């Protein structure tokens, strides 16, 4: 194909290869000259990082009236950021996903003020290998704010979580933050589909890694962890705002792609007595939000690749994002922030790369779409 058919990434890699080939012939003095010249060229083109992240006003810094109606004194607002679904292969195999993960880390590090913490939303690795998880750990170590880790199915099903837990600790845990109770779940357990089929660990992982591979089971939090969740919440008053992090959406969106948690209703029932619950989930790689009863749900963006909206089951409250441009490696991807308000509700900022950021206000969800509707897409799903 002609040169103009190449993607931005293809051109970048070719240019890079050409430069590296050229550099091999240089002595040290000439190399330093080239280095200085390229730095100058980069400055001249205004290509200094971060060039993709656009700051958005911080929502509602002051306590508002709704805090009183929620029966709370109004805890201080705070902001946390997220990076999710990096799907890293070993660095030698695939540099695209590494560049994207690094870009997200740079974005978050450029935030001023810094977020209280950074949630990593799961699927750090693509095929659950130690080399991939190690690479991810190195990249996330560059974050200035403390990191809260969550596990995804791509991290888990090679060795059923051995390496991930060795590196990051238990996959489900909770902590309190500025008056909010935060729960991190491991929501991607699957019933054993591999033993009867005599699968190797690699085959099991490969099966789970295929979104449309129907052989695998559906995600679930499971009996044990739901019991753990009930016990964990036993001491938390119902007026305390809850933040729940899960890799899969804790509702049923589209079964065939595991945009789904099989025991979602049971988990929702445990969360039902609380005035304000916000669930932040990964896995779906798209702008996605929903409201079920007292629970607001926000999906996170991926850094690796975007997913199209599923053919059925999209929550009616979700306003679709524009389709991603396949010719732009970073389009439809990004990271984001969540502003937890004094009333315990949470606004979500989708920090899309190569696009304007989109803010989804909690008011939009809790009013069931009556106010603060996010902007409509020009190009929704086919």
């Amino acid at each position, binding site marked *: *194909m002609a040169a*103009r*058919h*190449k*993607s931005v*990434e*293809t051109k970048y890699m070719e240019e890079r290869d050409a430069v590296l080939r050229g550099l091999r012939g240089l002595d040290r003095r000439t190399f330093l000259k080239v280095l200085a010249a390229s730095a100058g060229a980069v400055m001249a083109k205004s290509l200094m990082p971060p060039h993709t992240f656009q700051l958005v006003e911080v929502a509602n810094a002051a306590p508002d009236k709704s805090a009183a109606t929620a029966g709370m004194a109004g805890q201080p607002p705070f902001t946390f950021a997220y990076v999710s679904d990096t799907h890293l*292969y070993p660095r030698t*195999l*695939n*540099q*695209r996903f590494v560049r994207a993960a690094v870009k997200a880390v740079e974005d978050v590090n450029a935030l001023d003020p810094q977020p209280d913490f950074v949630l990593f939303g799961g699927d750090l690795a*693509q095929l659950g290998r130690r080399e991939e998880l190690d690479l991810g750990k190195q990249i996330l170590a560059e974050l200035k704010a403390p990191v809260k880790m969550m596990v995804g199915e791509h991290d888990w099903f090679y060795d059923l979580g051995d390496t991930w837990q060795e590196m990051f600790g238990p996959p489900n845990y909770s902590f309190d933050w500025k008056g909010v109770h935060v729960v991190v779940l491991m929501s991607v357990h699957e019933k054993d589909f591999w033993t009867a*089929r*005599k*699968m190797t660990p690699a*085959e099991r992982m*490969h*099966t789970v890694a*295929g*979104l*449309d*591979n129907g*052989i695998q089971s559906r995600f679930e939090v499971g009996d044990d962890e739901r019991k753990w969740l009930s016990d964990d919440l036993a001491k938390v008053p119902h007026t305390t705002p809850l933040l729940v992090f899960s890799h899969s959406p804790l509702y049923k969106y589209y079964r*065939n*792609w595991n945009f789904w948690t099989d025991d979602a209703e049971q988990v929702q029932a445990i969360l039902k007595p609380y005035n304000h619950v916000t669930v932040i989930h990964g896995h779906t790689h798209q702008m996605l939000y929903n409201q079920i009863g007292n629970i607001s749900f926000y999906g996170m963006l991926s850094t690796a*690749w*975007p*997913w*199209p909206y*599923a*053919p059925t089951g999209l929550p009616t409250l979700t306003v679709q994002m524009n*389709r991603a*441009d*396949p*010719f732009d*490696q970073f389009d439809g991807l990004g990271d984001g922030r969540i502003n937890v308000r004094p009333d315990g509700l949470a606004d979500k900022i989708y920090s899309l790369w190569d696009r304007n950021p989109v803010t989804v206000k909690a008011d939009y969800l809790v009013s069931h779409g009556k106010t603060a509707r996010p902007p409509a897409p020009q*190009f929704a*799903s*086919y």
Partner: protein
Amino acid sequence: MSRRSIALATAAGCAAILAGVAYAPQVLRAQQAQPPLPIHQVPQAKDGGVVVMLCDGKTSMEVKGLKTGESMSHAQAVEVTRELMAQWQREHPNEKWEIAQTEQAPAPMSYAASAAGAKAASKGMQQGDTYASFTERDYKIWKNETDNFVAEGKDLFHDGAALGGTIGVSCDMCHPDASNTHPETYPKYQVQLQKVALLRDMIDWCIENPVKGKALDPNDPKLRALEAYILAQRKGVPLDYGKH
């Protein structure tokens, strides 16, 4: 099919195994956890010839005077298959073995006398033309052939390496169930390519760029199979060429 052609096909299959030319769609069938295809161990030749084995994996004989890589003459191949089948029948005296050649082929039947013809006549439908004369069996064979073609495409769609991909990326990673491939919208002006594109142009573009493989020739069986799979996933969606 005559007995002879069955036996010849058998011998050809065995010869393929002997030569180590077994078609094994790599990851994809494994992904669906099907047991691996059996590999038959052919005994060593004792007299410097070539050992040929039946597809039962047990019955074999040595063709003397034949060297590896040489072809048998037609007459010799017929003789070898006859001998192999005779050997198999001796070892399985109680197996029911129908010799197709001795079966009476169904007599040519007028369309009116056929089951399809009788049905059409009873319902007052048009009769007697070529397509109306095909049987249920014909349709099953065609469906099977088509579904196999689509399944080949599905395998490739889920296997970046099979498309020459070099960075672990396969089509299904961005397009589960071939979603967001919208084959019904081509041809259309693809602004990034600066030309009117067909589905195959976009497939090739994806192979070359996100997958980091080599673009396929339009007649490459892999490209045809990919097209088949993608189109099959959009059954029932109205054609809407030029749609953006």
